[in-house]
């Protein structure tokens, strides 16, 4: 018997643990700073075609003319964009071919949440792509999906293997000049995930990406592009974690969803970036542009559970271009300590008989600020458009804040738009009622909060719903006052 690939894997596994894979992970970093040379370096490192370099340089040129937006209800020291590394890749990249070999610390985190990657892998319904810092490290189940013609791989790989698809769709939903952070991302993005579902194919498993920022002083700029061809269906999950660090780290992602005629995309996020400590020190700045476009009879659902990040600025949106298309946004956003979140959605109705639903549940604890900001726009040709919005806020403390900023623009008189909003404070009565039945305070809060967020949690795929419930409980530990 010769030395097989399996033996090699075993040997490598041992080695990586020996050298302390987590804490001392060596990485290949570009020097700090942002300029044309850095962008050329990234493009070269990734062996990109000329058109992509052009795309980056155009975005960078435009970005330099832009200023950071200040309209959101958040306050933070502006990042120094010249003081960041724009490229960091784990050095052992090539050796990591099995999910078993990935960052034990992350796996510990996952274990705490009850969803180890190993477990995920075993759940035949989930395929995982894993992006650490800037580079996608491993994608499972690729072969299985390939049989159906489904492409699910890292963005870099898609650029190499499917350049025509990437070129055709990239930047069509979120143009490189769209906003400050999207432009920055377009200039310096380093990896992300790509997914293509062919005509008429229903993807038989949940596709899942885990994003992780590991290195200090790096920004993470990943792109996700999901294309669902005519009549296809895909459910896509995205999870995010980062280690605890004292300094603020920047995460500026772009997600583009394209649902062609009769296609459906369900996009679920559990965002648990490091939120900073209880004094508001450290944590991730999460400035993300997510948008999807629906062609005729298509449907896009965004479901998000946001518990992490020091500052969140994020509005997953739907452009309902095709007639009869449907957009949905279900969100639970929890802020604690000094976290700030300004999040919501935009529903742009262009086609006739388009329909959108917005359910937003904010939970504010500690001294945090939690804002819902949403736009419902009915264009003049969007006859019989419908929207229903419900924005609820739950306050856990007297020192936290909840805000709602709904914007409604209607240019067609046949539109029907409904908006409901409530704000309530978690009741001491509710907690005492639970205590009197033998349920301790922590469990009581978890019960009450999960009940409050149930409408949204129910929209998550099973595996994620369990994780999300535990996350809500962890984020709010000891937070009533």
């Amino acid at each position, binding site marked *: 018997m010769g030395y097989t690939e399996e033996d090699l894997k075993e040997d490598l596994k041992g080695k990586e643990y020996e050298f302390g894979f987590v804490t001392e992970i060596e990485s290949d970093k570009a020097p700090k700073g942002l300029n044309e040379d850095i962008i050329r370096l990234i493009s070269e490192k990734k062996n990109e075609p000329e058109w992509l370099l052009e795309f980056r340089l155009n975005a960078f040129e435009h970005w330099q003319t832009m200023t950071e937006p200040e309209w959101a209800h958040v306050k933070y020291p502006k990042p120094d964009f010249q003081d960041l590394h724009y490229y960091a890749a784990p050095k052992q990249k090539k050796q990591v071919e099995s999910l078993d070999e990935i960052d034990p610390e992350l796996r510990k985190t996952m274990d705490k949440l009850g969803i180890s990657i190993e477990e995920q892998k075993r759940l035949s319904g989930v395929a995982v792509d894993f992006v650490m810092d800037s580079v996608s490290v491993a994608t499972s189940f690729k072969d299985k999906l390939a049989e159906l013609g489904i492409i699910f791989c890292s963005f870099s790989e898609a650029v190499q293997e499917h350049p025509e698809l990437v070129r055709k769709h990239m930047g069509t939903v979120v143009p490189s000049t769209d906003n400050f952070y999207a432009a920055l991302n377009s200039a310096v993005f380093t990896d992300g995930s790509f997914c293509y579902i062919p005509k008429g194919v229903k993807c038989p498993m949940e596709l899942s990406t885990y994003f992780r920022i590991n290195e200090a002083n790096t920004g993470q700029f990943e792109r996700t592009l999901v294309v669902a061809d005519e009549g296809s269906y895909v459910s896509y999950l995205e999870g995010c974690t980062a280690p605890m660090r004292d300094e603020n780290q920047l995460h500026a992602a772009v997600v583009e969803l394209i649902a062609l005629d009769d296609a459906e995309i369900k996009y679920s996020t559990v965002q648990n970036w490091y939120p900073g400590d209880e004094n508001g020190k450290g944590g991730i700045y999460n400035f993300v542009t997510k948008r999807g476009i629906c062609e005729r009879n298509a449907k896009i659902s965004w479901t998000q559970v946001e518990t992490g990040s020091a500052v969140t600025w994020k509005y997953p949106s739907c452009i309902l271009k095709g007639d009869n298309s449907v957009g949905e946004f279900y969100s639970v956003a929890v802020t604690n300590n000094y976290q700030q979140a300004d999040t919501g959605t935009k529903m742009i109705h262009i086609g006739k008989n388009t329909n959108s639903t917005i359910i937003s549940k904010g939970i504010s604890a500690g001294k945090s600020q939690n804002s819902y900001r949403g736009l419902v726009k009915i264009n003049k040709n969007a006859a019989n458009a419908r929207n229903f919005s419900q924005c609820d806020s739950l306050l856990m403390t007297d020192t936290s804040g909840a805000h709602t900023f709904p914007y409604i623009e209607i240019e067609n008189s046949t539109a029907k738009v409904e908006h409901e909003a409530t704000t309530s404070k978690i009741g001491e009565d509710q907690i005492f009622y639970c205590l009197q*039945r033998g349920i301790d305070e922590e469990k009581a809060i978890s019960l009450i909060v999960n009940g409050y967020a149930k409408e949204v949690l129910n929209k998550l795929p099973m595996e994620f719903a369990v994780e999300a419930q535990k996350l809500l409980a962890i984020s709010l530990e000891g937070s009533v006052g």
Partner: protein
Amino acid sequence: MISINDLKAEIDGKEILRGINLDVKAGEVHAIMGPNGSGKSTLASVLAGREDYEVTGGTVDFDGEDLLDMDPEERAREGLFLAFQYPVEIPGVSNMNFLKAALEEVHAHKNLDPLSAKDFLARVREKSALVELDSKLTNRSVNEGFSGGEKKRNEIFQMAMLEPKLAILDETDSGLDIDALRIVANGVNKLKSEKNATIVVTHYQRLLDYIVPDYVHVLYNGRIVKSGTKELALELEEKGYDWIKQEVDV
């Protein structure tokens, strides 16, 4: 079962309980009556451990343990149950989930094995029948959208599920029509045994037609000023509370 000695408590600096003495033994039903503002509900809340009240004196022995030293959830796990005057709504949390969480805690506290899903469901069926609670209500969110009568029945249903040693019914008759009153009282009577005890807190005598007490105590101005048997309740019904007030205030 429970032995209350010279219990004093205040809220926001105002003394409400001014030295309560009460002994309740296993198998007994005690009624606590009194005019509005006499401290009846305060007594129930203090025994359950509500934090708004500050205990300023006295002791309470609960089955050999110092009740006042326990957290509210510990008191519940040790078998003290309070049927609330105003049951609280918890939107999005099903009655079933709520009770399952509560039972898990009680079982863990007593080092018992957790109830299997099958046994739990069987118990739900059995106990909901006891208080004639519609099975649909057991799946709805806790008390949300329940009528006044349904809320009170739900309290007794929870009591049946948790099988407490000592149940304190705080104005359980308030807001009930005569049919609902009968159903609730029937439930309480069926749960009575030699091993548990009940304290019924009420303003009116009519509940005591259905739940017959062994002893009746009259609470006035933070003290128990008169004790007797069920005849005392009838006397109160007839004469009102004024004669007691006069007796005490003189």
